[in-house]
């Protein structure tokens, strides 16, 4: 059991997401920075989809009621176990009565806590991830509250042997205030003028304070629509299209001065010109970006997108190999 003594600003249960119901209006949810989350599970020898905690900006205070092994990954944070500072990015043994305090989270937005065997909280539609928009019961529909008791599965065989191992620096993600995002152009790109597309790619965009797990909003650049009539059934504005299912990572252009990038708590069913999709490994980096950070876009081919994805997967694979060698 995890006993939540203080919930922190916004701590939620997340796994790798809820699939198969997006067409019913249910967002995938799941860890916003999937890369850091997967590294946490990998360090512990957990399967990738085991549920853990996503902690935002100010972390929780948690008492363990089981002997197990944990890992902290993601954005840097002030973390103490029984008052002693402990490092991120390595498996740490805990015993009943130990108190973990995750203080201020800096460099990024989210720090992750994964536990050997994973959380044993209830599932809905095949996932333990919290989703606020869904009206799901209990911890599946809200952030954690003081007094919540979260059941844990038994630690996995051999996990104690992982204690003290760590992740090489080159595998840890780097979060800073200048981001490079790769996107594959398409969907309704033809509704944007050539000059408008150049504007999208050559200008710097700033992350708006109204950005969250549903979507990030960007401003500061300028995109121009083509001057042509909107298609029948789309509405009257040149920025409208007949409603489409937006992909997660979709770059939506609601007007010529704003971009919206859909993230894991987003849903489809919208009618704004969408000009491409940010590749999935970059969504982990974007989700950790603080407001006022600056974004530059780089158009890539779909083959390059798969290559960039493979590079990230190979890093996780490397960690998995060292864990298995224990």
């Amino acid at each position, binding site marked *: 059991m995890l006993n939540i003594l203080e919930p922190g600003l916004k701590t939620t249960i997340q796994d790798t997401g809820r699939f198969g119901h997006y*067409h019913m209006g249910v967002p995938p949810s799941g860890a916003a920075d999937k890369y850091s989350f997967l590294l946490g599970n990998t360090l512990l020898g957990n399967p990738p989809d085991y549920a853990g905690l996503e902690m935002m900006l100010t972390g929780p205070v948690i008492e363990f009621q089981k002997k197990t092994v944990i890992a902290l990954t993601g954005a840097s944070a002030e973390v103490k176990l029984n008052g002693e500072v402990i490092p991120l990015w390595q498996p740490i043994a805990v015993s009943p009565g130990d108190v973990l305090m995750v203080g201020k989270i800096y460099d990024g937005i989210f720090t992750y806590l994964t536990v050997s065997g994973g959380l044993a909280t209830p599932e809905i539609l095949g996932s333990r991830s919290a989703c606020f928009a869904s009206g799901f019961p209990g911890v599946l529909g809200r952030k954690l509250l003081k007094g919540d008791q979260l059941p844990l599965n038994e630690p996995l065989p051999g996990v104690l042997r992982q204690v003290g191992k760590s992740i090489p620096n080159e595998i840890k993600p780097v979060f800073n205030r200048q981001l490079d995002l790769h996107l594959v152009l398409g969907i309704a790109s033809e509704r944007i003028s050539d000059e408008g597309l150049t504007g999208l790619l050559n200008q710097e965009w700033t992350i708006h304070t109204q950005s969250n797990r549903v979507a990030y909003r960007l401003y500061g650049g300028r995109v121009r629509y083509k001057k042509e009539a909107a298609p029948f059934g789309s*509405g009257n504005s040149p920025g409208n299209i007949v409603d*489409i*299912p937006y992909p997660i990572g979709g770059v939506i252009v609601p007007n010529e001065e704003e971009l919206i990038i859909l993230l894991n708590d987003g849903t489809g069913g919208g009618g704004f010109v969408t000009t491409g999709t940010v*590749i999935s490994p970059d969504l982990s980096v974007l989700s950790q970006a603080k407001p006022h950070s600056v974004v530059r876009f780089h158009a890539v081919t779909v083959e390059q997108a*798969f290559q960039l994805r493979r590079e990230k997967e190979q890093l996780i694979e490397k960690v998995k190999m060292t864990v298995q060698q224990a």
Partner: protein
Amino acid sequence: MLIFPETKFDFCGDEYIYAEISTEMRIESNFKSISITNELRKRNIPGMIEVYPSNASYLIRYDPTAISPHHLLDYLQEIDQQKSHRSELHFSSRIIEIPVWYNDKITKNTIERYQHLQPEAGGDDFIHVMRANGFTEADAFIAAHSSPPYFITSLGFKPGTAWGFPLGVPQNKIIQAPKYPSPRSYTPGEALGIGGAFTVVYPTESTGSYQLIGISAVPVYDPGQNLSLFRDSFFLAKPGDLWKYRPITEAEYYNIREEVEKRTYEYKVKAIEFSVEQYDEKGDHYISQLMEGF
């Protein structure tokens, strides 16, 4: 004879393929989208994670470590070809009755609070939409809105939000409404909204920008699975279903609410086979045939 333009396929990032059947809204494009996505779902292809039909397009999410994106694209193109023949376009669906208290007091209380968002409506969405569509009498407007069945083209926005498009109505007679220029921060659960040519029932309390013209007495989303119809799914709507709104009085509304709360309410449902070939040949007459006895 039904002719489809060539479907445009696009890779979106490293996990999605988007297929655009037509750029403009055509109900036939939606029939094709539903036929294809139903077929894909049935085939249960390993590595295909999401299958999402929409108005005139569909979206596939896949795991590129489990399935080759290029093989998947070829496969989708093949099914698209096959489903370009109207004889291949058919699906099982249901007609479901939704009892609605039109021009109700509950949504009116909400609208009054958001008058400032669209001053031209004078704080009454129902009258605003009624007048914009050339009606002077509430009863005539309610009869016009509730007489056709609404075809569920797609879901999205919030879990269970289903867009319904009226079938069997000439385009110039379809009731339409502008959206709020800026969304309301609150909409009551089960409110009946209209935006463009689409009607929705808001599944839960949420933000919203459609004009509110009534309230459904029955839920369309039930994650607690309190009513028997939700035993297999949290969602009342499925793309391809037909919803028929039945106007009810305030008293009937509260009677039905009571049945819903006691978990005894039974939806009126009829299973049908929808044939696009028949629709193409017989048009509105086919729709009246499907609705017979309902």
